């Protein structure tokens, strides 16, 4: 066991899969000698060679198209899109191509591709470097969209993602990269790709969140606990599919729920969670479903970023409103 950051836990997981499966390949912009602009792939080219870990020309559609052709010839690609905002250049490769190929080939050809990409706000990046674009991708049949909220899950989930035989969009939170450490077991372990996790048990209200907002939600749970209010916090981990069973079980117990996301509110993950609850568990509720999300503007530039991002105060305010209903 070693205490590792979120980013080093991902590096460790990539090391495991590269070591285990000689057909795995890591490629993208700057991932080779430079080890990625965040150093997520640091040391991997030295260890596994330029045939397995390599730089590509600067073109996102090219990178993901390359992945599809590599998968077609027996490889297991782990491409990196340097920032999630750059996936706009490669939307066809994801939604038009890799996610549909299993169907196109009657289930007989697989696209075992893990697209890694950093996202998420709060680090004052340049424009288009922090966007939460999961809303665009969760409605893509044939694509899994996952995001770990802590270093332990990050390692276990990257290993599961690479081992999965369907395309996985693996979103890595920029703010969490170096702000958290966990005890990380050495070697291989996996964390399932399609189950949510109850990260804190409680009985009075359920807070459903993912990625960096899980930590914000835990802060709120701590604060409410001082007043003997018991909040349950669920980390979705998988944004598509969504593990509704875990949510329904919790709501059955607490009868109150707040759904939190960092992304803008329109038609996203939180909307899906809220509508699933409304459709299947509304009779268990004693109050309306609370929602916390960013406003429906474009992602802000650095100076207003912290005012724009939903934080623990916003979650607490919404939780108190729902509790008082």
């Amino acid at each position: 066991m070693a205490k590792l950051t979120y980013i080093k836990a991902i590096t460790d997981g990539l090391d495991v899969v590269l070591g285990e499966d000689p057909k795995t390949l890591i490629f993208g912009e700057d991932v080779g000698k430079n080890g990625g602009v965040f150093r997520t792939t640091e040391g991997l080219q030295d260890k596994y060679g330029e045939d397995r870990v390599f730089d590509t020309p600067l073109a996102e559609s090219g990178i993901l198209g390359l992945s599809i052709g590599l998968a077609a010839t027996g490889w297991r690609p782990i491409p990196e899109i340097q920032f999630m905002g750059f996936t706009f250049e490669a939307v066809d490769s994801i939604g038009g191509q890799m996610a549909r190929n299993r169907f196109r080939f009657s289930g007989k050809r697989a696209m075992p591709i893990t697209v890694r990409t950093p996202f998420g706000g709060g680090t004052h990046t340049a424009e288009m470097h922090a966007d939460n674009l999961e809303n665009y991708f969760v409605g893509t049949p044939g694509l899994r969209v996952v995001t770990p909220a802590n270093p332990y899950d990050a390692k276990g989930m990257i290993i599961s993602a690479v081992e999965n035989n369907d395309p996985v969009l693996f979103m890595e939170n920029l703010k969490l990269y170096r702000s958290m450490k966990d005890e990380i077991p050495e070697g291989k372990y996996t964390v399932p790709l399609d189950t949510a996790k109850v990260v804190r048990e409680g009985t009075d209200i359920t807070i459903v969140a993912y990625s960096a907002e899980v930590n914000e939600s835990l802060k709120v749970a701590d604060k409410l606990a001082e007043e003997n209010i018991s909040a349950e916090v669920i980390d979705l981990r998988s944004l598509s599919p969504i593990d509704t069973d875990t949510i329904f079980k919790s709501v059955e117990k607490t009868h109150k729920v707040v759904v939190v996301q960092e992304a803008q509110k329109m038609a996203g993950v939180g909307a899906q969670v809220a509508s699933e609850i409304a459709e299947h568990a509304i009779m268990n509720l004693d109050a309306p479903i609370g929602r916390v999300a960013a406003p429906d503007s474009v992602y802000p530039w650095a100076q207003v970023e912290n005012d724009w991002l939903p934080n623990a105060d916003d979650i607490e305010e919404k939780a108190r409103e729902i509790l008082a209903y």
Partner: protein
Amino acid sequence: MAKKTGHVIDFASIKATMSDPYKKTFQIVDKDAKIVNQELFDTFSDDQLVDFMKKMVWERTLHEQTMNFSRQGRLGFYAPTFGEEASEMGSISAFKDQDFLFPAYRDLPQLIQHGASVAQGFLWSKGNAVGDDYGDQRNWFPQIIIGAQYVEAAGAALGIKKNGEKDTVSFVYTGDGGTSQGDFYEGVNFASSFQAPAVFMVQNNGWAISVPRYKQTAAETLAQKGVASGVPAIQVDGMDVLAVYIATQEAREFAAAGNGPVLVETLTYRFGAHSSAGDDPSRYRTKEDEKPWFDADPLIRMRKILTDKGLWSQEQEDKLVDEYKTSFKASMKEAENTPTQSVVDMLKTTFEEPTPQIKADIARFEAKESK
């Protein structure tokens, strides 16, 4: 300080000459069936010449029969191949079984020559994904998103290289319109950067639906689009099946030998509409535009060459057409006897392991579809 007068960089002459290396269209037999390269022509045996003609007659008959089926309402989307027989059959004849093929929607004849059945082609048109189940064949589905096949072909070329596969290349087709896509350039450039064995075919048939070739780019040739990526290219008479074959075969050999990708532009013409779904070429081109190209019909020149050599007769061709038609009708029956796909089939092939939501949908549609 003296003021600079005039130009030191002669952009005008750079522009005027930059296409020159690509404008020497490679040809063996011209439109009047005159052999312009006797030495190369003599490298073909009589059997080979007859075989090329048979393939082109096969493709034209397939087109005509497909249009008949289409008019009878027995097919869905179909992109007519009429006029492009030399470009398609000449190039596919240079393929080996181990080569990977990434076709676009007008390339069903090559897909079939590379191992798919005619019935599969019809199933694709009818909207049954079973048509795209190619088993172990190195075939990919007919790409609809123009350009996507180019980046994917670059990936397969890199995969072939990494697999250490000898004498194997990744082939991909697009048209003149396709060369305007960003993915076109990304695919060519990626394959070049990795020096991967890809052959990029551009079938320049003059039209992207209604938009003429000259509106796609001011470049005088499409072949020269390779040069910026360090990819050698050639422009070929796409109505000359022998020239297309030799150019493709040599491109293949060059790429397979580890020299990096090659780009081949074939100058051909879409005799028919863009698709069977209501496109009317008379809205955007005239009979006068079409005439020189119909005069250049690839079958006319080969028919004359073979007839002069005593290797071909109209009677023989008619008999062949009848045989092909009979077999295409049998293929259509096969396609029509293939069970239609169900929503459940679709749901089951969305993921390897259906998600809980998809499992619920499967149960719902199983109940619905069993009624």
